[in-house]
Each structure stands twice: as C-alpha cells, then as structure tokens.
C-alpha cells in the first residue's frame, strides 16, 4: 500500500469517525442522564434527513442554512418522545429496563412505518447544496467537502456541548439529575423537565448529524438502521453516558472500520470494530471512559 493510499484511508476514516461520533453522542447523553437506551435513535437521524430534504424543497435554501431549523425540530421531537412515550415506560414497577427497550423499539418501528407511508419508498437526495459534490484534493488525498464540513460541525458540537454541560445552570441540572435523581427533586429541580430537555438535546444532536449527512447521503425510511448500529457500538466502546468517550470512540470506530476494510476482505469490515469492542470489554467492561 502506498503512503498516499494509507493517508487516504486514514483521512477518510477520521472524517467518517467524527460523523459517527456526532451521531452517537445524543444516544450517550440520554443514556447517561437516565439509563435508557433509545432504540429509535436511528429513526431520529432518518427524520432529520427527511426534514432537511423537505425544507430544502420548500424553501430552496441551502441545507447548511437550514441546519438550525432541523436541529430545533428534532429538539421538539426528542422532548415529545420523552413526554409521550418514555415517561410512561419509566412508570413500570417491574422490568422497567425491558419496558423502556420495547417502548423505544416500538417507537422506532412506528417512525419507520410512518416515514414509509408519508414519504414513500423511493431514495431521496437533497437537490442542491453549496458543498454537494465538492472535493478537496490534498496532494492526491481526496477529502469530500461535505464530510470535512460534517467533521468540523461535529467538533464544534462537542465543544459546545462541553461548555453547555460545564458552564450553564441547565448543564449542571443535567449533571446533578444524572448523579442522583432523588436528590435533585429535594432541591427543587423538576426531574421530568430535565429529562424532557435532555431528550430534546440528544435528539437535537442527532438532528445536526442528520442535517450534515443529508448533504452527501441518500435518504430513505431505513437509512437510520445502518448508522444506529454503529452508534450503539460507539456508545458502548466510549462508555455509556460519556460524552468525551463518544468522541474518542467515534473516531476509533471510523479508523478501525477503514483499516479493517484494507486488511481483511471489506465485507468483514465491521468485524474489526466488534473485535475491538470485545477486547475492551475484557479490560474495561464499562467502556473506555465509562464510569463504574
């Protein structure tokens, strides 16, 4: 393998990894907050992509300009998912974990079916973007601008999230609720409100990922499924609930996937990612940055 080909695999893995991290962080955030795995996470991504597509068709504006609108829409969707579904699932007296899994899984199937009913089964494509189809040629290493943009947005989102969590009252309320749900109620924090906002924030982050992805990926009712699987392993590898872990694990997953496709037959490229995860489980079952 030439040095140039190696650089290409490294760069492509890194760019995809940062996008994987952005897809996964919302999932990790929600889990960290309330120990619920959102199995409809991929469907949130899919809806964000359709929202981007729909808004571009309606307004003829660039998807980059429309990104805040998509993020806002997904924030509302996330809040509604908590208030309309998860809140009730959490009231189960027995097998609460299983009820939550099936509630969000049911939500996933419902959203997929609704999307197929509403948008049809055809593959959609955002009609035009300033970034679409542009590629940066860095000495024979090709970097697609939409992915570079996605990687930058991802890093910015992680930076913003860090500031939000550490410097704002809302962030501190999230952190406190995560530490001890019972104690926060005693100091006057409305647990339900924090959870709803947490779900909104998690969905808004995956909404951002969807808006980025819509520029260079096809849109289909099932599109979330393949990314969701990567998001789950990313969260598990980084450590459930760890925001920084999601960033590191996303990059690791992107790189391992890219290099596995070079070393092994590409059909087995996800084997590398899962092998790495299993290896981490032996040493740190809580994930790289997870808390015990």
């Amino acid at each position, binding site marked *: 393998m*030439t040095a140039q*080909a190696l650089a*290409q*695999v490294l760069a*492509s*893995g890194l760019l*995809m990894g940062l996008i994987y991290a952005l897809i996964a962080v919302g999932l990790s955030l929600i889990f960290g907050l309330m120990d619920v795995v959102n199995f409809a996470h991929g469907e949130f991504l899919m809806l964000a992509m359709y929202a981007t597509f729909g808004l571009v068709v309606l307004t003829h504006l660039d998807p980059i300009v429309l990104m805040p609108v998509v993020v806002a829409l997904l924030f509302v969707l996330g809040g509604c998912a908590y208030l309309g579904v998860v809140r009730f699932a959490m009231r189960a007296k027995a097998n609460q974990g299983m009820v939550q899994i099936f509630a969000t899984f049911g939500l996933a199937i419902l959203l*997929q*079916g609704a999307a*197929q009913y509403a948008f*049809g*089964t*055809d*593959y959609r*494509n955002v009609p035009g973007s300033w970034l679409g*189809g542009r*590629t940066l*040629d860095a000495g024979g290493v*090709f970097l*697609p601008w939409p*992915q570079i943009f996605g990687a930058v947005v991802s890093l910015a989102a992680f930076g913003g999230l860090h500031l939000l969590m550490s410097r704002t009252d809302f962030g501190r309320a999230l952190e406190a609720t995560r530490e001890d749900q019972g104690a926060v109620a005693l100091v006057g924090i409305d647990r339900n409100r924090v959870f709803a906002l947490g779900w909104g924030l998690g969905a808004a982050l995956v909404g951002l990922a969807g808006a980025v992805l819509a520029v*260079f*990926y*096809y849109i*289909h*009712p*099932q599109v979330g*499924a*393949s*990314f969701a699987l*990567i998001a789950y392993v990313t969260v598990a590898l980084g450590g459930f609930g760890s925001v920084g872990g999601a960033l590191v694990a996303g990059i690791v997953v992107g790189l391992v*996937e*890219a*290099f596995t*496709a*070079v070393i092994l*037959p*590409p*059909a*087995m*490229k*996800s084997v590398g990612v899962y092998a790495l995860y299993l290896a981490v489980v032996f040493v740190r079952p809580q994930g790289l940055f997870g808390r015990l």
Partner: protein
Amino acid sequence: MIRRREILTGGAGALALAGLGLGPARAAPSEVVVGVLYAMSGANAQVGVDARHAIETALDIVNNDHDLDLPNAKGTGLKGLGGAKIRLVFADHQSDPQKGRAEAERLITQDKVSAIVGCYQSAVSSTVSATCERYGVPFVCADSSSPSLHRKGLKFFFRPAAHDEMFSAAMFDFMDAMRNKGEKIDSVALFFEDTIFGVDSSTVQRKLAGERGYKVVSDIKYKTNSPSLTAEVQQIKTANADVLMPSSYTTDAILLTRTMAELGYKPKSIIAQASGFSEKATFDTVGDKLQGLISRASFSLDLAAKRPMIKTVNDMYKARAGRDLNDNTSRQFMALIVLADALDRAGSVEGPKIREALAATNIPGERTIMPWSKVAFGPDGQNVNADPVLLQYVGTSFVTVFPEAVAVSPAKWPMNA
C-alpha cells in the same frame, strides 16, 4: 374467497363429468389465487412497490380484454379455466430469506395460492423456492438472477428470464467484440455485495475473465448497506481496471457512485450486473456521474420501434408507477404473463398440473415484451432462450448497444476517455 378444498372438490367433479363426456366447464373455479412475494418494506421496498405495479399491469391484461399480442390478452380471464380471473395476494418478505420462507408458507397454507411469483433478492428466492417445492406449488422466479437457483434439482422452479451466467457471458462477449475492434481491454475489477446475488455473479465473472484472458486486478466483496464505501473504493481506484464490474443493489449503487466521485475516481468503463444500476432512483440521484455506464438487461424500450405493443404495455405501467419499465419490472411483468399462460393451458389450479403446463411452455419471443427468442423451460426450469442485451446510459435514458443485431447505436467506449 374460494377455499382450496372447494376448488379441489370442484375439480374432481369436473374430472368425473369429463370422464362421462359431459364437459368440464361448469365446475371451473371463478378465480385463481396467485401469491406475489416481494420486499414491500425495508431498504429495498421501492423494488417491491414497482413490482406490484408491473404485476398488476400484467393482471389487468390477463383479466380484462386487451388488443395486444400477448398470451391471454384478448378476451377476459383464462379461457382454459372457464374464464376464471386471477386474484393476487401480496406479501412482504422485507428482503429477509427467513421471512420469505415464512410468508411463502403462509401464502400456500392460508391463502391457498396456486403459484407464487417473486422475489428479486436471490437469497430470498432461494428459501422461497425450497418452500414451494415442499408443498408442490410452482414458483415463477421473476427477477432473481443467481445461477445456483435452477441448479438445485427443484421440480417446481421456473425462471423465464436469464441468469447471471447468461448475463455475464453477454458482457464478456461484448468486451471480446470491443477488443476485436482494437480497443485495449486487459483488466477488470469485480465489486460485489456479500449475499448470494453478488457472490454468484462474481464467481461467474471471475471464471469468464480467466477463460477469456482478462486479468482480475481487484476482487472486492463488500458488506451490503454499509454506511461508507470509502476504503473499498480506494482499492478499486488504486487498481484502476479497464472495466469496473459492479453487482450491487440500489443503496450500494448510489453510495458507490457517489464515493467514486468524492475520491476523484472516474472508472475507464463500467459494465454493471443491472440490479441497482437499472433502478430509476440511482439515476435520479447520481445519473450525472454515470454517463456512458453499460448495464446488462432483459429489456429495452428501443424494441418498441419494432414491436409497438411494448409501448402500449409501458404506457399502462407508467400510468400506475409514474416511471418506465426497466430490467426488473419487465421481468416481473413477464413472470405473471408466463404463469397465466400455463394456468390457462393447465385448466387446473392444482400445483402438479400447473407445473406440467409450465414445463410445456412455448411462447414465441414476439409474443413477449422482451428481446427473447422464446420462452421454453429446460428440465431445470430455466428458460435458455432469454437472450440478454446490454444497454448504455446516455443523457437521461438507456440505448441498446449489444448484441449488434438489436443495437440501435454503437457503444461509446471507453465510458470516461
């Protein structure tokens, strides 16, 4: 709904009456139930939606009176079954071989279908054909092209269209012809998805490349529906073969094309094993990057110039589906036409009788919408007369470029000079 038992009782009565010389027509069933099994949800749902339109177009032609030179077009219903009409029962296999098997069983045991048509994905057709065999119900494989399907010794399996060995042979015949014209074609890159369709297709192509002196410089099996194909494309870019030969479903076809463009790779030429590369969605999304792509096909709209009924059928389909017939939908359409012809001749809704009639099928090519010489099945259930064509994507449509006897224009070669 008429139950199978009633049909069988009726059939037995009819046979008894026939034996007495009193005529069979009175006890004929009023409808024949045919199962149609496709992915109606999931990543390949659009194929199922289009298949439904194609098969319903064929149903309209069989059940109602149409002035077309297709079997059972004139008059209503199936004359051999006393004018009985076909009723379709659709089922969804979600591209999953196990769901396909379960749905086939349900269609046979609960809906009492007389035959099943399907299933697009070769992996699903494989389990469905085995289930049909077990129940003695004919399976008309419309559009799965894996050669292994007709080599399992199944008695109830019938495929009117070509399989990938025939398609791939046509591709290599074309490359040989281009070589004879002085074009330099030394190497090929195989790029195929990891289910039975891609794997079988590549096996044939690898063998043909070896036999005919083409070097396989890249041989990549990739995971279908991958979120990214960058590392894979990097490898085919490095190999830079004279001809890239992909066997991909729609999602991967779109992603492959887009990734090649992102990595600044313009393959010298592409000859595709149709599938995703014959789907409208692919060309709507990335058609600008596929100018000059050559794909194998069972069907060409160009043939309408010689056989005007093709345009009529295409218009009927287009009114339903909002798109032209393509490689897949034309085969799905023909599957029901061929099955209806057999049902008509069988004069029965019983599996073994329909099987016998299917085995005796002999429809001349002019009475189809395909470039086939005829429809007649070998003992393995494969129609060996389903001559494929190669089409080239030019502007916004496909033109036939091979074989020369049916070509409407010479191929632009290489695709990207």
